[in-house]
């Protein structure tokens, strides 16, 4: 069969943080590059650009995804949430607030991805999803407690070259309601910590 000519660009409408943006994209454009280079939304960061670091994490249809491996043209019709859309107006998302309160970063470059990932992690855990460190994955075993080990495993797709992992785990636990409701996370560096804010 003859090959029909196939355009290499398309007009797409992307639904980002509740607003529709219509633009023409070369099909090679990733969602990450569309956000940063075309829509002036620089909160989402480019790290490795090959799906290995998590800096570009956004939510697509409420689930976390790496925007560097998501073609923009293939994201049409889906609900995209970036770090710019996580807060409710001036009210920070609990994950954002916890990262601020517990210093869940140093340089901050990986932080938007960390926060988007943590927002989704909390939802995944609430839905009862097991992880690779969950002892018994059978549904009868019930949802695993969100221990520090569970948080580390579930956040392993987000690298932090500053090594702020200790505070990141604390912040995710705080945001998930673990730290405030059940005391320090077992096995976390938050045990016995005198760090300001960590005891709340």
């Amino acid at each position, binding site marked *: 069969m003859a*090959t029909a000519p196939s355009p*290499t660009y398309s007009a797409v409408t992307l639904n980002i943080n509740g607003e529709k943006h219509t633009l023409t994209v070369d*099909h*090679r454009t990733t969602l990450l590059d569309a956000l940063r280079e075309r829509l002036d939304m620089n909160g989402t960061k480019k790290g490795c650009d090959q799906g290995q670091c*998590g800096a570009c994490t956004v939510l697509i249809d409420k689930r976390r*995804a790496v925007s560097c*491996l998501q073609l923009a043209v293939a994201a049409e019709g889906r609900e995209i949430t970036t770090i710019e859309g996580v807060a409710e107006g001036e009210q920070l998302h609990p994950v954002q607030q916890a990262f601020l309160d517990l210093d869940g970063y140093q340089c901050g470059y990986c932080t938007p991805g960390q926060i988007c990932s943590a927002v989704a992690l909390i939802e995944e855990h609430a839905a009862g999803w097991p992880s690779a460190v969950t002892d018994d*994955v059978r549904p009868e075993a019930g949802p695993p407690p969100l221990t520090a080990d569970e948080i580390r495993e579930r956040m392993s*797709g*987000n690298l932090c070259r500053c090594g702020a992992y200790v505070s990141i785990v604390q912040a995710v636990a705080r945001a998930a309601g673990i730290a405030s409701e059940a005391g320090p996370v077992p096995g976390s560096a938050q045990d016995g910590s005198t760090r300001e804010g960590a005891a709340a």
Partner: protein
Amino acid sequence: MREFGYERAVDVSGALALLDADPDARFLGGGTNLVDLMKTGVERPGRLVDVRELPLDRVEPTGAGGLRIGATVTNSDLAAHPEVRRRYPALTQAVLAGASGQLRNMATVGGNLLQRTRCGYFADVSGPCNKRVPGSGCPAIEGEHHNHAVLGASGHCVATHPSDMGVALTAFGAVVEYETADGAGRVPLGEFYLPVGDTPHLETALPAGALITGVTLPAAPVAANSRYRKVRERASYAFAIGSIAAALDVRDGVVHEVRLAFGAVASRPWRAQVAERALTGGPADAGAFAAAADAELAAARPLPHNGYKVTLMRNLVVAVLSELAEEATR
């Protein structure tokens, strides 16, 4: 990256027609491997046919006591599915051992089976690779091969298949289902990946132009007592250097049924049938597990820097089967 056309398919027949119309077209699922390879120039399709929205996103019981998994089910949804966790827990464990939360949300079952090796020479378009450019040579054999194959490789290619999911699916006898313009077909996962031989660029038994529509897991009561264990060079978010999917049914101290498959040791998920046969009907103890592992691994042909995998796999067989045997008698 080469420029390409993009079409979004809404049904299987439409997807097949779009692919058939362009010999340079490829199906796009989650894109976690294909888009990455397009960036580096390993893959250079002229058109992508996006199949992610096809109505193949269900996990459903079969009448015969198994499960049918649609090709566009995401890794996350497969791992979280209650019936997978209940009937085939090693499959959930295998999927969760792979990649990251972000990638599992994007990746699909069909795409997982068709992902390419992570051999560094395959990924480097500036050098030779028999899988990427047939006849150009295999630098891994005398180069960096500490995580390459010890079973079923050839003098033409020693790359491994990187899937975790596929190892558990292989242990449980999964069957791949596909559609072509000429009709539907099925092939057991154990026969899905072709022997390496002198054609490492020919990877699967899928006919040209075929679309994977799903995977069927036959009923396997033994799978309810199963485990996936993965060894890697960091605690999470890394490919295996060796992995095992195992299921065990012990009755009165005797192995009634056993399933074993190895990952990261061959060009395909490796069903350890020699070991399964050696174990069936015999004692369920560490000595028998070790002997069965040795029987399977007698075919291993390690290279100078990956001989540790033979020991690693032997130890994994003994450890995981011992755990399953102990738990079965509780």
